[in-house]
């Protein structure tokens, strides 16, 4: 038996206001179950699923000679039924009445039937039976469906029993038409009762089944099920069908915002909110704690937002908010690198802060104790932009070298020289160093035939410090890169696909020339460093004022040909800080400071913003 409703369009019962209001019988069948097709047999269209099938996963399996068998959710398949090209068939599962009607569309797919169709049966929502959503105040409204015998035999013993809140009535159409009502709240002229019956529905005959939904004041329910049971006999077999669909019962009083607050921990979203109602909402924050908070919204169906990401405020002991102007960086990775070094990959969302930080600030220990940002001296490194239009800055910094097996602990923050403040992370990242600082000469050579060539370098990749035993000023030399550092990075000279001399310091023409140490690099403090030539200070590194001072500067943008080894080479006429070419093995000056105090920068300069 088919059921249909009226005044619908193509998608029928799944429209927002799908209720039939009388009039002529529609061609659109009522579908209490929607098949969600996961895999298909291309020619097969599922036209209708009997509601008795319930919900869950069902299958249609192709057998020999273009036959199909249907298995309703949770039971075995029924008998195989042949389906002719462009023909229909009713496939019954193991239980009579659990069925699907299918159509074989051989125009769309002329192939034979094969494979298996898998589909989930789900309830309809806001369909012709369940109607629209209501509130807890209750409702009385009306709808209708047509019962239509599309078979060639009588359908007998029709018993219609509605579920709770429904009353029903039959109306006999006159000339194929029933009374039209203007809307779902206007009562039709029929007498509703708790059940109705009909002895016989002849082939091709229709009967309008009207129903009244009366829901009194009730509780909120985001998925209430409306049901009308239809029992009948066809071909001496008794069937029981259920016309059903979900509707929702809302309570406008539940609609509110909810503010959740956690003191020194994330809020408990399963507990009562700190404040609720309409915005604005307020909650007291006790002094001396960090407070995490999140705002959620609850709708009339008692469904709340599912966000857990919190904002936070730090309130000091006097009840004042501690302004945290900088976001913490994220430590993407921390790992033991070559030569006893530790590489730390950092990411900072610079656009998230009103005034962005410009410096990575790391607190590092290697003796197993946790870093103490209140007392330790930070290791500051300039941030380098990682590309145009990139929404965050990602840099990888190298620390160390450290002893093999040392436990290195790092707290990563960012620092803004404009705000003169740093972010507040206390998170300690830890690892054990698993590589070793090379000891002894690095005997790299080339060989030509049977002859061993001369060594290209006898200097290790590694760090040379110039203020031992403090070891805060030095030159770190890696293949293709040399880094000169004091309390912060002074410059970084890189050779490779993109040769660059990177520095965040300014070049100031201030002649030097005072008496200095005989060493090429002279350290007064980690902020005051000199490059000497022949015992005279010829260039000054001032990390307090963040500048390089020399009598003059030349920017050669081309490698000088100084065939000596680095990373620092001193001659009577100049001091060179050099970088080793990874391909040729030759050392190339990154800078040269001559006896006249002229500093020549030999690579293209990238002046980075401090």
């Amino acid at each position, binding site marked *: 038996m088919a059921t249909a409703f009226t005044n619908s369009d193509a998608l029928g019962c799944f429209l927002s206001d799908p209720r039939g209001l009388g009039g002529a019988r529609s061609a659109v069948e009522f579908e209490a179950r929607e098949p969600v097709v996961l895999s298909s047999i291309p020619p097969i269209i599922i036209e209708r699923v009997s509601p008795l099938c319930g919900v869950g996963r069902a299958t249609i399996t192709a057998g020999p000679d273009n036959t199909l068998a249907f298995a309703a959710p949770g039971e075995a398949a029924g008998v195989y039924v042949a389906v002719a090209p462009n023909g229909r068939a009713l496939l019954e599962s193991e239980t009579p009445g659990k069925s699907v009607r299918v159509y074989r569309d051989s125009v769309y797919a002329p192939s034979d039937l094969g494979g298996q169709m898998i589909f989930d049966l789900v309830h309809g929502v806001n369909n012709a039976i369940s109607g629209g*959503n209501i509130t807890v105040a209750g409702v009385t409204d009306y709808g209708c469906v047509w019962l239509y015998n599309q078979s060639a035999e009588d359908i007998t013993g029709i018993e219609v029993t509605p579920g709770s809140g429904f009353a029903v009535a039959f109306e006999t159409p006159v000339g194929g038409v029933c009374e039209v009502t203007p809307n779902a709240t206007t009562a039709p002229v029929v007498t509703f009762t708790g059940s109705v019956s009909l002895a016989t529905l002849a082939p091709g005959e229709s009967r309008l089944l009207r129903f009244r939904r009366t829901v009194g004041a009730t509780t909120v329910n985001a998925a209430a099920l409306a049901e009308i049971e239809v029992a009948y006999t066809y071909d001496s077999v008794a069937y029981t069908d259920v016309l059903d669909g979900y509707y929702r019962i809302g309570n406008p009083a539940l609609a509110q915002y909810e503010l959740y607050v956690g003191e020194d921990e994330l809020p408990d*979203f399963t507990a009562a909110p700190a404040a609720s109602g309409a915005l604005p909402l307020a909650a007291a924050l006790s002094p001396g704690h960090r407070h995490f908070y999140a705002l959620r919204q609850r*709708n009339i169906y008692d469904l709340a937002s599912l966000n857990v990401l919190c904002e936070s405020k730090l309130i000091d002991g006097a009840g004042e908010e501690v302004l945290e102007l900088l976001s913490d960086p994220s430590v993407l990775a921390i790992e033991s690198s070559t030569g006893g070094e530790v590489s730390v990959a950092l990411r900072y969302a610079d656009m998230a802060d009103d005034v962005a930080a410009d410096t990575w600030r790391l607190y590092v220990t290697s003796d197993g104790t946790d870093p103490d940002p209140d007392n330790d001296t930070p290791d500051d490194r300039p941030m380098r932009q990682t590309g145009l239009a990139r929404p965050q800055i990602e840099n990888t910094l190298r620390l160390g070298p450290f002893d093999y097996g040392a436990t290195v602990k790092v707290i990563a923050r960012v620092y803004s020289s404009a705000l003169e403040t740093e972010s507040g992370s206390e998170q300690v990242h830890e690892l054990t160093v698993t590589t070793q600082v090379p000891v002894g000469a690095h005997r790299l050579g080339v060989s030509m035939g049977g002859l061993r060539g001369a060594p290209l370098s006898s200097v290790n990749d590694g760090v040379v410090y110039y203020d031992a035993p403090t070891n805060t000023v030095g030159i770190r030399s890696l293949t293709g890169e040399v880094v000169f550092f004091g309390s912060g990075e002074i410059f970084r000279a890189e050779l490779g696909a993109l040769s660059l001399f990177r520095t965040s310091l300014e070049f100031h023409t201030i002649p030097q020339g005072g008496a200095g140490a005989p060493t090429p690099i002279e350290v007064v403090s980690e902020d005051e460093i000199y490059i000497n030539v022949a015992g005279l200070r010829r260039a000054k590194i001032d990390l307090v004022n963040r500048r390089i001072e020399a009598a003059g500067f030349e920017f050669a943008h081309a490698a000088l040909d100084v065939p000596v080894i680095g990373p620092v080479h001193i001659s009577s006429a100049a001091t060179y800080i050099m970088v080793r070419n990874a391909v040729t093995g030759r050392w190339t000056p990154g800078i040269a400071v001559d006896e006249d105090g002229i500093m020549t920068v030999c690579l293209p300069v990238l002046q980075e913003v401090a």
Partner: protein
Amino acid sequence: MPLTPQAERLGLYSTRYTWSGNAPYRVWVEGELRLDQSDATELIVQYPGAAMPQAIEVLDSNDTDPAESEAYSPRLRLQWRGQADAAAYLVQRLAGSEWETRTPVGESGLGYYRYITVPEIDGTEVQWRIVAQDSQGYQGAVLRHTQTVVCNPLPPAFEDSYDAGTGLLTVEAAA
């Protein structure tokens, strides 16, 4: 009872979620199942646009109730039947008074086609339609669907302020 994951903002465009409970876990983000029966206890979610909290639901093996993200999914599932003369189907959403094509779906002989929409906003009435199109670009049958969405509300946008005099945190609707 769903787990409450911890969230850490990794930048403007990604968030790391971590949780603990009894594996395996199922995790939904914005109504989409991201982890299914997984032992993972971490998920990094990247998303375009401005940083904003997301809807995340984590169920562990102790949970027997269906996830709200699934029972009240913010995403509509559109399904339609292939047509013999169609070359493609235009999935369109009504935006104001204009139908915007979200994606074309090619006719490939599968028989049935499905499209999962973007997350819709709770309480709104949305309209989607499927327009069949032949190889010459002529459009044919239109299947149209209107739905009032009922799902977990979006995390609300808000502005906050703190008054040291009263010790009160106040949140209000974002301007």
